[in-house]
């Protein structure tokens, strides 16, 4: 049919994985036609109101067409929802399956290192084992990210709520990346007001967010660049911000920064590493903790990413599931 090609219905059908008559575009056309039919029918009925046969015929026709179209819309929506759920479940299951061998690799490498601590082992061998250990750690984090995304999609991300020392989290995250900062000759400045109160949130997830923002800044800043971290209290919130003079984000892509799998064009060109999941997860975590996350960026000049997190109000500390 002519309109199948003209309206890109084939492409739409291929993208969604459905038949062309199930695509939203086609159903929309049907709805349009239906409106015309109903209006024509109304016109006929008003002209021949003394003919009950005509009235019944037209009405049943309209009802049948509405039922058919309605049914296709419902089954299409159901199919899409089902596919989406299957996708999330697949990611969960696959990630779980990946975790066991990953733990095994990590633990075995650790075991090797601890065994050789007392005995002599060449520095090259030690380096190799350490690399295996670091890389499997990296892979574990990647799998964890995928699992987190699947959980967010299913609305099942677990977030603990307890008093957290955000200053310590920032300091510890900085200590973690000390080595890479030195190699890349990046200047890091951390300014914080004297009395930053405890915040109310999930220590591990908050650390994930801070590390993620920090790693992004380092990754997208050239050698000899500068990164500034700030913590300040504003009303009932503590605000964390991180400023870099890195590659920045093109203005036309600003509205997609927190989207799942988003990677900006200028970054994709030069860097290979990165999944585009970090900021999506960060946004979900911060919002679940009743905070906000935002940024400002100019391509070529750098970016500032900030988030706010509520100050801890509860004086009585509840015992939480703090050990897993």
């Amino acid at each position, binding site marked *: 049919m002519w309109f199948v090609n003209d309206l890109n219905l084939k492409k739409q059908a291929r993208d969604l994985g459905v038949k062309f008559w199930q695509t939203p575009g086609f159903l929309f056309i049907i709805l349009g036609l239906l409106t015309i039919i109903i209006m024509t029918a109304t016109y006929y009925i008003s002209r021949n109101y003394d003919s009950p046969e005509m009235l019944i015929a037209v009405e049943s026709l309209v009802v049948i067409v509405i039922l058919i179209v309605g049914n296709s819309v419902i089954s299409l929506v159901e199919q899409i929802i089902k596919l989406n759920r299957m996708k999330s479940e697949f990611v969960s299951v696959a990630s*779980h399956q990946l*975790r*066991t061998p*990953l*733990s*095994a690799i*990590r*633990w*075995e490498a*650790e*075991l090797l290192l*601890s*065994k050789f601590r007392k005995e002599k082992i060449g520095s090259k061998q030690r380096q190799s084992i350490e690399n295996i250990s670091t890389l499997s750690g990296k892979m*574990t984090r990647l*799998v*964890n990210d995928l*699992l987190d995304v699947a959980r967010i999609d299913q609305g*099942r991300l*677990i977030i603990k709520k307890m008093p957290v020392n955000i200053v310590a989290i920032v300091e510890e995250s900085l200590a973690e990346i000390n080595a890479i900062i030195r190699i890349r000759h990046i200047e890091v400045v951390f300014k914080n007001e004297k009395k930053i109160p405890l915040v109310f949130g999930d220590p591990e997830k908050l650390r994930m967010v801070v590390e993620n923002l920090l790693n992004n800044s380092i990754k997208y800043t050239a050698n000899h660049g500068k990164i500034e971290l700030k913590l300040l209290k504003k009303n009932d919130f503590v605000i964390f911000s991180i400023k870099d003079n890195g590659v920045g984000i093109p203005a036309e892509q600003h509205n997609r920064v927190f989207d799942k799998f988003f990677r900006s064009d200028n970054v994709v060109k030069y860097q290979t590493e990165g999944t585009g999941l970090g900021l999506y997860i960060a946004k979900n975590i911060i919002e679940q903790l009743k905070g906000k996350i935002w940024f400002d960026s100019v391509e070529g000049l750098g970016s500032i990413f900030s988030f706010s997190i509520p100050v801890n109000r509860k004086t009585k500390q509840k015992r939480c*599931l703090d*050990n*897993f």
Partner: protein
Amino acid sequence: MRVFLFSSEENETRKTKKYMKKILVAEDEPILNKALSEFLTEAGFEIISAFDGGEAAELAKAEKPDLILLDIILPKKDGYEVLDELRSDEKTTKIPIILLTNLESAENIQKAFDKGATTYLVKSNYKLEDIAKKIKEILEREK
């Protein structure tokens, strides 16, 4: 000579074993079980290994370990069944049990604490060293 050396060594360990804390490792994946057992032996614990839930429950009752590392997905009986069984038995009800698993949904964690787990660790997030540290912490607390 060799035999003598070996047996005296054996005697040594037997003597010190009296003061060593006994830990039951219930993990069906052989490589993970071996890695855990070896590392914890190095760290100064006495280790008993179980490779399925039934074996874990029996060994726990017979050996009365000071602490149990328990996986959830295990053949024969799963970790929750073992947990129920040990908590309802007078002899084993007070033994600290760490669930060590790769499942991490809210329901799983809640269920574990409801059934009386001492703590819940996600395998892939912990180094062997961290697990040893947790064990020591819990044993200190239980003293």
